[in-house]
């Protein structure tokens, strides 16, 4: 058995006018939490759909746990939460879940048992048993839970979540994070795509950044950050950048890039710039410094640095 959950080799997908994915290769280690990062329109969803054999690649190969993804039954070990979510609105919750589980090769009697467990776990059984309600009687948050149950009901070894945090309320978002970590502890592989770098940085073991259908970089999060160097400085100022402070933070002899968040700044210095000198000049300028820290760049910084604002291909919208 392969120790790669997913092995994508030289995959190409062309549409009429543009190339959605060009010569993409990436490997997802078994048992890891893997982030597929990129701006909207970068080719994330196309890549995920090709992994799931929803779209056929024009060239290249994709294997799941060492077997080609076109092999019959292999997709039964994959759980998928698409970005565009929805359920049969007029159907009873329990019947929707049963149907989706059956499609993944679970026998109806087993599925019924699991559905009860999951409904209880997501507190959908209380004063009312929401399993017997119709989908459109459920609140949005409850529907999200049901959708998530549908993804995990057949106990997949590989879970693919496309923009899982979009549209989630904070409580469900936290529940999702907990669930992802629990899956990892149980040895499952989780891939999720996102354009929110904070989530990725906190949760992922490895990431791959893609833009314009191409891989920009990939690897373990620590290695990616390390290779990006530590010429970054985090600065927190009480009361924001007053008077000349702002000019110092943007001094082109020191600072290559300044990410200004009003009270918090993330600076990227030129390779030969002296951080101590910068600190002194900030004090001289009258800055009220709460934090001044040499640090590794955040994924967000790396992303901006490597992809830039031009990472989104013109004329494309909708699916990454």
């Amino acid at each position: 058995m392969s120790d790669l959950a997913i092995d994508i080799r030289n995959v190409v997908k062309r549409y009429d006018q543009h190339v959605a994915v060009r010569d993409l290769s990436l490997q997802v280690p078994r048992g890891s939490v893997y982030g597929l990062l990129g701006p909207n329109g970068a080719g994330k969803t196309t890549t995920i759909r090709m992994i799931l054999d929803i779209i056929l690649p024009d060239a290249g190969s994709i294997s799941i746990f060492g077997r080609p993804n076109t092999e019959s039954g292999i997709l039964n070990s994959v759980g998928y939460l698409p970005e565009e979510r929805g359920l049969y609105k007029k159907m009873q919750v329990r019947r929707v879940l049963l149907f989706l589980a059956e499609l993944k090769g679970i026998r109806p009697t087993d599925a019924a048992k699991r559905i009860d467990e999951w409904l209880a776990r997501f507190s959908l059984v209380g004063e009312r048993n929401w399993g017997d309600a119709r989908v459109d009687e459920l609140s949005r948050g409850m529907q999200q839970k049901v959708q998530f149950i549908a993804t995990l009901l057949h106990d997949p070894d590989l879970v693919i979540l496309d923009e899982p945090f979009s549209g989630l309320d904070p409580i469900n978002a936290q529940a999702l994070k907990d669930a992802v970590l629990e899956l990892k502890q149980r040895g499952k592989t989780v891939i999720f795509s996102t354009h929110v770098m904070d989530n990725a940085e906190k949760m992922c073991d490895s990431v791959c950044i893609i833009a314009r259908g191409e891989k920009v970089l990939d690897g373990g999060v620590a290695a990616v950050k390390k290779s990006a160097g530590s010429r970054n400085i985090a600065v927190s100022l009480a009361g924001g950048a007053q008077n000349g402070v702002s000019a110092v933070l943007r001094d082109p002899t020191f600072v290559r890039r300044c990410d200004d968040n009003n009270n918090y700044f993330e600076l990227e210095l030129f390779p030969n710039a002296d951080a101590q000198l910068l600190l002194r000049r900030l004090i001289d300028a009258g800055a009220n410094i709460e934090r001044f820290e040499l640090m590794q760049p955040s994924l967000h910084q790396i992303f901006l640095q490597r992809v830039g604002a031009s990472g989104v291909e013109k004329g494309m919208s909708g699916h990454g």
Partner: protein
Amino acid sequence: MDNKIFIVAKREYLERVRSRTFLAFTLVIPLFIAAVTMFPLYIAAKSGASTAIRHVTIIDATGSGLGDRIAHALMTDSTIARIPNDTVTPRVENVSAADVPAREQAAADEVKLPDHITGYLVLTDSTLAGKSARYSGRNASTIGDMDKLRSLVRQEVMVSRLEREGVRKDIVNDLATSNFRLSSERLTERGRGGSGQAGIFAGISVGLLLFMSIVFHGQNVLRGVLEEKSSRVAEVVISSVKPESLLAGKVLGVGGVGLTQQAAWFAISAYLMNFLGPVILKAATKGAVTASATSGSGAANAALGASFGGMALSIVAVSLMFFVIGFVFYASLYAAAGSMVNSEQEAQQAAMPVMLLLMSTWLMVNPVLINPNSKLAIVLTWLPWSSPIMVPLRMGLTTVSPAVIAGSALVAVFGCIASIWLSARIYRVGMLMYGKKPSFSEVAKWIRYA
């Protein structure tokens, strides 16, 4: 893979059969058909002569015993509904011509009293001359009663005049009671095959039923696809099932619903007509009726029997086969149309070409009815989009050889394969395309790169 088609089909089938709309349609349609068929029967039964025309006074001023003859005929005519234990007989008053006005006045007064005579008939010399008689009564506008009275009076006038001319009595009786009926029977190369009307009834009803079922359930497939797409559930499902299997399962499931519904329709209609029909007829003729075979209701009964009983088993079998083929052909096209669009309004537009194909077939039904062996009819037998309706229709009208039936079924099956192939390619791409409605050239591209 095959198993997944079955799972999809099962969901489609159960969700639809469980719905209230299905139950309503399944029960309401046969009731409607029964009502539509029964109403003319009811009217026919209603319009037959009723026993009321026996409750009359006959004022006979002819002096020839014509009144007694008519009274006798009224009592013996078997087509007049008869109430058991009804002992009322026509009262004949033989009067002189001068007394007629006074007697008429008395009879008119009696008609106005409750539970007395229904009306009175006045016979004069003019009647005997074969010109006119006069009737007044409460049932004067009841077509059935008046028709019966008119024919009895005419018959008895003829009999008495023939007798007067010296024609032998037995010959007169024979002539008078001869009951002429034209019955028609269809002859085919294979022998006798029910009445001519039966074939047309069967052909039209089968054709109409097939057409309506294909449109109705085809639209259902379209709506189902659209629902999966607009509720965004499609992508989860497609990550577990190949789009082709999803399409196939959907078409099978909805087709199963169609077959179930039709079986229910046939069963309920047959029940209603066989068991309820006579009851309604009884009700229509107020009480115990011995309606004879030659009466109006008898003819209606025959027509009714023709539309169902006259339908040979072979037509039913072939109709079912062609329903399945035709449904698969059109339903997969409907599914493709549904996958291209995002809203019900757009769906109607996208389904237009499919609808046109169906309508063009339907418009040809009339010419084929008129001449089921024309070149046009033969061409339509072989085209995969028209044969599912035309073959059963023509079978009801003329003889279609088993070889032709098998051949056109085969062509239609190939048509289905082409339609499924085409639809699956559109469906595969269309299911995950949101946004504006694609143009035809875009759809052509989908077909190429799917």
